[in-house]
């Protein structure tokens, strides 16, 4: 299967760093899990990241914000993953809008969720945060 992956890697990484969030074996293939990015600053809400494993695609692992801005709940990791045309997507389990796994953009509405660059180092899943 040759679906294009188009994640843009940021060129300036000054303020960002790679953070390990889980092991490859924690992922569920063709489905999602959720990781918590705890914030040291207690006045800021912890970030929830939905992480998807699509073994049949080039990039394999994708990470986007877990909060569904339309359904207004932390549920995106529990959606079904798949493709719509060339886009790799997850369908929100609440109202089924598609969010791109590569950009976080919603395909049906002008709204998007955060997306995180991901890399795999020694079987560890790392996000650029």
């Amino acid at each position, binding site marked *: 299967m040759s679906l294009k992956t188009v994640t843009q890697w940021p060129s300036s990484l000054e303020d960002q760093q790679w953070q390990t969030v889980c092991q490859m074996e924690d992922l*569920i293939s063709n489905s999602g899990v959720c*990781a918590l990015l705890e914030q040291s600053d207690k006045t800021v809400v912890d970030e*929830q990241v939905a992480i998807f494993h*699509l073994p049949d695609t080039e990039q394999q692992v994708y990470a986007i914000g877990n909060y569904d801005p339309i359904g207004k709940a932390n*549920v995106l990791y*529990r959606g*079904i993953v798949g493709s719509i045309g060339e886009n790799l997507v997850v369908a929100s389990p609440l109202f089924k809008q598609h969010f791109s796994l590569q950009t976080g953009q919603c395909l049906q509405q002008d709204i998007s969720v955060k997306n995180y660059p991901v890399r795999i180092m020694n079987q560890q899943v790392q996000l650029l945060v």
Partner: protein
Amino acid sequence: MNIDNQAVVKTKVVVVGNGMVGHHFVEQLVELSNSEQTVEITVLCAESRLAYDRVHLSEYFAGKSAEDLAMTDEKTYQQWQVNFAVDAKVSHIDKAQGFVETEQGKRYHYDKLVLATGSYPFVPPIPGKDREHCLVYRTIDDLDAIQASADKSKVGVVIGGGLLGLEAANALKQLGLKTHVVEFAPQLMGVQVDAGGGRLLKSKIEQLGVQVHTSKATNEIVDGEHCRYKLCFSDGSELETDLILFSAGIRPFDNLAREFDLVIGERGGIVINNQCQTSDNNIYAIGECALWSNFIFGLVAPGYAMAKVAAKHILGEEQHFTGADMSTKLKLMGVDVGSIGDAHAKTSGSLCYTYENQPNGVYKKIVVNAEKTKLLGAVLIGDTSEYDTLLQYMLNAIDLPESPESLILPMAADKPALGVDALPDSATICSCHNVTKGDIVSAIDNGACSVGDIKTCTKASSGCGGCTALVKNVTDSLLEQRGVEVKKDICEHFAHSRRELFDIVKVEKITTFEQLLSSHGKGLGCEVCKPLTASILASVWNDYILDKSHVGLQDTNDNYLANMQKDGTYSVVPRIAGGEITPDKLIVLGEVAKKYNLYTKITGGQRVDLFGARVEQLPPIWQELIDAGFETGHAYGKSLRTVKSCVGSSWCRYGVQDSISMAILLENRYKGLRAPHKIKFAVSGCTRECAEAQSKDIGIIATEKGWNLYVCGNGGMKPRHGDLFTTDLDDKTLIKYIDRILMFYVNTGDRLQRTSVWMDNLEGGLSYLQDVVIEDSLQIADELEKQMQLIVGSYQCEWKTTLANPQALKRFKPFVNSDKSDTNIQFVEERQQIRPAYQHERIAVNIAENRVTQSPKIVEPV
């Protein structure tokens, strides 16, 4: 290089008013000027919130929040680089120096000024009109005030029986008030509807419990004797009420234009030309404050058209506003009302055809020209099914058939169906977004090949939604003309129907989605084909649905063996076969609910639902339930739900068979059966039918001699009575027939097709099904029974299997890297139980717990 270093000078556009039209203008301007960034937009907004959907305002009382109604938010405006200020009412315009000033004294300079100030409710000068519980219906703040007043009131009166007045009356009724409508004119909805229609409308609305008083002029509002106030009418009669809502028409907010010398109409409204400019070239007016050709448009679609024209004109593009059609179709308190064009037959020489059916509450009138060749207008009450067709006749001046009355007569055999082909390309299909048939044609020329594509690229049917059916008809017919087969494909990944995939899975012995995709599909699959395949695999092979290879296929409900609620928590529904439960088990349910603090409700399916379980609580809850002898109720599955029963011959003095035992037997036999959609049964002990079996997919009613079997009934969105399949069956034959019927449905039904719709689409209908099942006309009865036996024989309680499987349990942990819970889930207490907090009740989490002062009662997770 010779680059001019100076920043491009941007045109300063100031928009006064951020209602629906003002916002649409901003949206248009942002979109149109996208690449150039030549404008700098400032929005000044008198209300305390940014634009919201006023058309659907009444849904606020039906549970929608202000956020739900919002059309934009601060973040979006920031992203668009639009400056804005709320609570900023403009009180001064300086045309010479080009600035406006708000009440607070802040100045904003403009190159172009756009007035989108809308209108305000007119309150007639009746003495007493300013009392505390005298209100209007226009803004969210108004609605809050109405709600607060209604909480302290028993009776409400709406003054004004126009379209908005009736909508307001409906709201008062929903708020639980005894409701009256008082109208000055002799009839309701005088603008849109003629006298005959008004009469019928009145009687229909009175049947719904709202009292209508026409020809009543209110002289005075004084203190009441039984209620808070009393209305005194000019004819000497009186009416007592606690709350008064004025809905006596709207008036344009033209005060700025009036005070600062822009031309206004005789009876108000800011005069504009075809480019929406006022008498000052740099000032535009759009929406309900604007007077075009001596006319104010009180609807949103014409306002949107003006917004577009003004935005284009500011960017240097010439476009014209040429008026708009004011036809309307709506449902008022459940009564269908339609009004088209010249509803009052005011055109000279015009003629009318009228049809009235008082017993059924239907009134229809068409107005035609003297030559009887063109439709000029129409009024439809109680049945608006001809609205679309009539509107097209009027808008496109299509020649009328020989006898125009056939357009509205019921049962006219030769009723001319207006083919989509008869519409000219200029025909407006969606008036909210001004999409014509020609627009759809060109979208198809550019590659659109489904209704979904058309919606995305033209925005058709994304406004009020009233044109959805027409858009589909036009699109399908145009596609068919081009030889495009209107596809029955389930989605873009499989060029097959559900039935075809079912056969493929069976014949080719396919056991995983990957196999099916690589041999018959393309892409990676989606939320349509994955659960569908999972369901077929379960129907054919009945494997454990959370098997590693199936996990990613399941809809979220199946995936967590529970129903997801709006806040991401789940509900827990154990099976209570036939609705029969021992006191001990009932106590267990209570104890579990108490321990995990779950909201508890008796469902419509004779069992108990426990709501508000976090994903990580599901396994321990189910462990306790299973230890107490419960099993999963499959409330999450497209599968057998419940078999409702009545007490039957074991208790009831009329019962002729043991309906409870039969219900329990059937529920246990078919539990876990996966199907195209959910399946419900009921068994009644005699013809009194207390279990409502005729509204179920499978309904069974006891007779002296055995059981009558009904099939393909449905409650829900489109109720259908079950068809009597056959009578006086013994237990064994009953079960044999049900086996065959259900398996035939499982084999041939479409995705998400209930048995009722399946039956309606089955060629040959009931008698065909009787042939297949009773006469075995297809010679498949044995096969169907065998298939069912496989399912029945391989039943497992999915929760029991899951609890014994550590790998499957891992997925119920909310985070892979933390043991915390989701802090976004918040409950408040209502009637001694939890419920999810509405947006306005939520407290920001983590933001220093000690700072929360106005604290709603937040219930801690257990």
